[in-house]
């Protein structure tokens, strides 16, 4: 699969990353390199291998359903840029 400059721009748009033309070109060549690497890996026959969803061959540990956290809102809000009535304020997002 070949990657186009438009693919790079689309991914950047979806990821909310602002990229200049130059940066997009640089990212294209780096990403294409990664795609080549993936292509050569795909040449290996893996039909007899069960796919893994995680790099580590371990199983998720579970927590008991218990409340272990206390209210830390004062601490958290002390580092927020803007708060009011206990709410975090952010630029308006309604569509």
């Amino acid at each position, binding site marked *: 699969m070949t990657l186009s400059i438009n693919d790079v721009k689309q991914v950047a748009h979806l990821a909310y990353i602002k990229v200049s033309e130059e940066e997009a070109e640089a990212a294209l060549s780096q990403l294409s390199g990664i795609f080549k690497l993936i292509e050569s890996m795909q040449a290996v026959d893996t039909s007899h291998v069960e796919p893994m969803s995680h790099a580590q061959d371990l*199983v998720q540990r579970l927590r008991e359903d218990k*409340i272990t956290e206390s209210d830390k809102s004062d601490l958290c809000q002390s580092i927020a840029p803007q708060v009011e009535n*206990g709410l975090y304020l952010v630029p308006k997002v309604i*569509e």
Partner: protein
Amino acid sequence: MQWEIVIGLEVHTQLSTQSKIFSGASTAYGAPPNTQASFVDLALPGVLPVLNRGAVERAVKFGLAVNAIINSPSIFARKNYFYPDLPKGYQISQYERPIVEGGSIAIQVGETEKTIRLTRAHLEEDAGKSLHEDFHGMSGIDLNRAGTPLLEIVSEPDLRSSAEAVAYAKTLHALVRWIGICDGNMQEGSFRCDANVSVRPRGQEKYGTRCEIKNLNSFRFLEKAIDFEVERQIEILEEGGSIRQETRLFDANKGETRTMRTKEDANDYRYFPDPDLLPVEIAPDWIEQLRASLPELPQARRERYVTEYGLSGYDAAVLTSSREMADYFEAAARQLPESAKLCANWIMGDISARLNRDGLDIGECPVGPAHVAQLISRIQDGTISGKAAKTVFESLWQGEQGQDVDAIIEIKGLKQMSDNSALEKLIDDVLAANAQQVADYRGGKEKAFNALVGQVMKAAQGKANPAQVNAMLKEKLG
């Protein structure tokens, strides 16, 4: 043209755990803003999610209740999108290998039963809440809800009308409460529906283009939104237009749906397995343990009420709409198995009406099923009339006479006359006093008979058994 409506529902049920799905913060509703948002819920750098066993258990219970496959291992994925009520920039959800796959739910529409297939049910975290008013042009964010465990239950597009969609949503709502995985509180957002709606010419196999209506938080809105959307789509198609695939919002005040966003790139969530979470294994003995913990399910009860108590499918469906109601019916019907239908009528009629009047659930009914059974048995044995029973019921409701049915009947003088000779004397008196009507009846005027029955009932002060009066009068008038 004849149009066929095609609907699939996605329902977000909030699981009734104490703590969040990936953190130890409380999920209690109504706390002051952000007091239940832990470092994990706020997505502070360096934190890791740890999965709540209670959330997994509830999801598995649901899967077992709908005869689905429980996937093991099941995996979590990141669903990437940007919105300030989602501080990580992604929602932890499931994409491949959701915890529950397949299964089905039987719904009752009128006297017809229909099976609705499920696609899947997956675990995910809820987002926070954005408040858009009164913050000098900014939005206020409350992250208390962020990280609350949800089970998103997705149906196949098997529903063919808004009535079926509502029946399905109600059945699902009853089921999740029945098995104790969700409190079902719709005002608090514990049970929210998204409807995928499309239409196609009847007979066509290919589905039409669908629109998704988001966040319908009542059964009435669900019905109205679908009806409006169906009409909108048919109108466009009949005018030669085409439907654009999009997400729509229902405006409850105007009773219409409107565009929220089109699906161009909004739907590109770039899912990938979340490296912060390992695959979840659900051991067979754990599954069996959870299966054993399930109560008798509504579907099984419904069938049993039809076979064991001879109820209609409709009655059985109404009585199993909540576990409280089903238990109430069963407690009464066990005492009067021969009069189960009468118990059903009382619960669905007088008792439900009285509960509605006071805004109570059947679990809060001041008159218990044992008293109702006793009351019904007094109608059955002829002690009181059906009409008098309503008076007794109200007295029971008010807690009079220590809720002793017989004492209430006695003190209020509601006993029917069962003594034939007393009734006979009464009838003789009435006949003697109404010679004209007797003559009319004998002359062929049927109406005169009813007048005489009325006179007797009046003379008996309503305590005579109408059937008995009828029979005795007929005999006397020969």
